Structure formats: C-alpha cells, structure tokens
C-alpha cells in the first residue's frame, strides 16, 4: 500500500472533503488514509467480527463520499459524523444478525506453549478476553467504552456521536467498566493478573 501524500497531512478533514467533492482524487486517498482505520477499528471492537466490520467501514466511507457535495462548512467534525454513521451501521448489523456473540467463557484459554511464545499468546488471550467481555455489554455501553477507552475520544464528542447527554455518557461508561470488570474477574488469573 502506498504511503499517504505528506502535503495532505496538514490539510483539515473538511477541506479534503470539499476537494473530494470538486473531483480531486488525491483528496479521496488522503481522507481514506485518515478515516478508514478509525471506522474499521470501532466497527471491529463493537461488532467483534472482522468481515462485518469491513463491510460497515466500507459503507460508512461510501456515505462520506456521497455526503461530500452537500457538506456544510462547520456543521460537524468529519470524524464525529463518520463515527456516528459507523455506530448506527453497527446497530443495524447487530439487530439484523442472530445473537451469536462469543460468550466470555468461550474465549480462548492461554494454551501451553514453548518458552518465548508465552507472552505473545498471553497478549492474544488478553485481547480476546477483552473483546469477549465487550460483547457481553449492552450495545450503548459497549459503544461508549470503545469510543472512550480505545479511541480515546472526549465525553462531549462521544455524547454527540451517540446522540445523548454528557451525563448519560458518563453513566454508560461507569456501568460499562463495572460490567467489564465483573466479566473479566474470573479470568484474572488466566490472563496473568494475579491478586497479590
């Protein structure tokens, strides 16, 4: 994959979107380089399925391309708009598909392995355990936790994305973290977090 155009890195998202609407193909590439990893990451965390997350990310980016000619300056941050579209697409997906989420206890256990591979396997096990615990959470809590703790967004932006108040975001985050802690409690030793 070719690297992003260096000159485009300092251009604001909104300017790139307008350049795209004017027919600039390089603007499309620059926007895709910036936006696709973000939308793919949140969709993967929220859905827990890479293939579905790729479909959602592609659809979200398609909606961005389509909205470009009608984008009004200052109406919103492009990233905020894109996160909101992505979250709504994720909700549509989870409502359509059958409830086949991975139970926390079904997440892979750290297997016996040769010395040297243990850390890698433990990291994988921790990643899988967190993903499984996220999928146990109610959808809105999961979205809030992903946006706050994995995408590191501020609460006001999360509130705008989810269409709720900042106080509601704080509540979602608090309940989400409690849920995750409870879900991961019995895997604590397996994941290498011994109580001393």
């Amino acid at each position, binding site marked *: *994959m070719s690297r992003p155009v260096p000159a485009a890195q300092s251009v604001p998202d909104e300017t790139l979107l307008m350049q795209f609407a004017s027919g600039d*193909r390089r603007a499309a590439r620059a926007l895709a380089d910036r936006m696709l*990893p973000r939308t793919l990451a949140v969709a993967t965390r929220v859905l827990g399925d890479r293939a579905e997350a790729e479909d959602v990310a592609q659809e979200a980016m398609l909606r961005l391309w389509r909205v470009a000619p009608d984008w009004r300056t200052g109406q919103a941050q492009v990233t905020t708009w894109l996160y909101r579209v992505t979250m709504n697409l994720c909700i549509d997906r989870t409502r359509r598909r059958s409830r086949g989420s991975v139970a926390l206890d079904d997440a892979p256990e750290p297997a016996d392995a040769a010395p040297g591979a243990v850390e890698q396997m433990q990291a994988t096990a*921790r990643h899988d*355990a967190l993903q499984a615990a996220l999928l146990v959470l109610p959808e809105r809590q999961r979205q809030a936790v992903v946006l706050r*703790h994995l995408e590191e967004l501020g609460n006001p932006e999360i509130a705008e994305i989810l269409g709720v108040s900042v106080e509601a975001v704080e509540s979602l985050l608090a309940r989400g973290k409690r849920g*995750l802690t409870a879900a991961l409690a019995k895997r604590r030793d397996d994941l290498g977090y011994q109580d001393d």
Partner: protein
Amino acid sequence: MTDKQDKFDPLEDLFAQARAARPEASDPLMQRVLADADAVQQAAVSEAAPPVVGERAAARNSGPGSVLASVVRFDWLRPLTQALGGWAGMGGLAAACATGVWIGIAPPATWPDPAMLVWQDQSGLDLFQDQEVALIWAAEEG
C-alpha cells in the same frame, strides 16, 4: 504490597494493549473504498454534464483539468436539475416551452386567434365610448 501495585488496574492494562493492537485496514479493503470514491466522483461528473456549448468551449480552452473545472461551475445547477427530475426532466421542460412558443406564433387553423378576439373587443368598446362622447357633445351644443 506497595501503593503502586495497589493502583494497578488490569482493565486499563487491557485497554492499553488493545489500543496498541488497533485493527489495520487491509489493501483490498482500501482498494474497495477508493473504488467507491472514484465511482461517486464519476457519477457526479456525469450528473453535472452536459455543459452548454459556450461552457464546453471555455472548458476546452482552459487547459488540463478543465473538465472538472466546468463541473465545479455547474454545481449551482445541480439542485435545480435534481428538483426537475435531472437532465431528462430539464429536456422535457424545454420541449414543452418550445411547443408553447410555437403554438403562440403559428396556432392551428381551426383555433380562434386570441389576438384578434382581444382587438375586436377593444374596438367595440371604443366605438361605444365614441358614441357616448358624441351624444354628450350634441346635448351640450344644443
């Protein structure tokens, strides 16, 4: 146990590891996304075309990239053409206007001439008014 160890939060550690292992977009996905972008741009170009002859000549004369420049110039037309059903709708509207103008210039022989009807009506009214004035003058002159 030290304070530092007491403050260690496994959940925060898991978050940090997950942030470090962010899912990357694959090349095929990036290519699909860019293909979508290209398709949307192409659709915008074909939606904005065809420009009028003068604009097309101006676009030809303004050098490389001039086709896209002409697309930008036609952005203001897009809402109007979309409201009227696109370029097909605009074509229908133009044909209807031309038909109306032609009927006005050369109406079918079986139709009454509206201009003539109006003229006759005004002529009758003028004659009546002239008679009224003549009678008033005759009465005044005795």
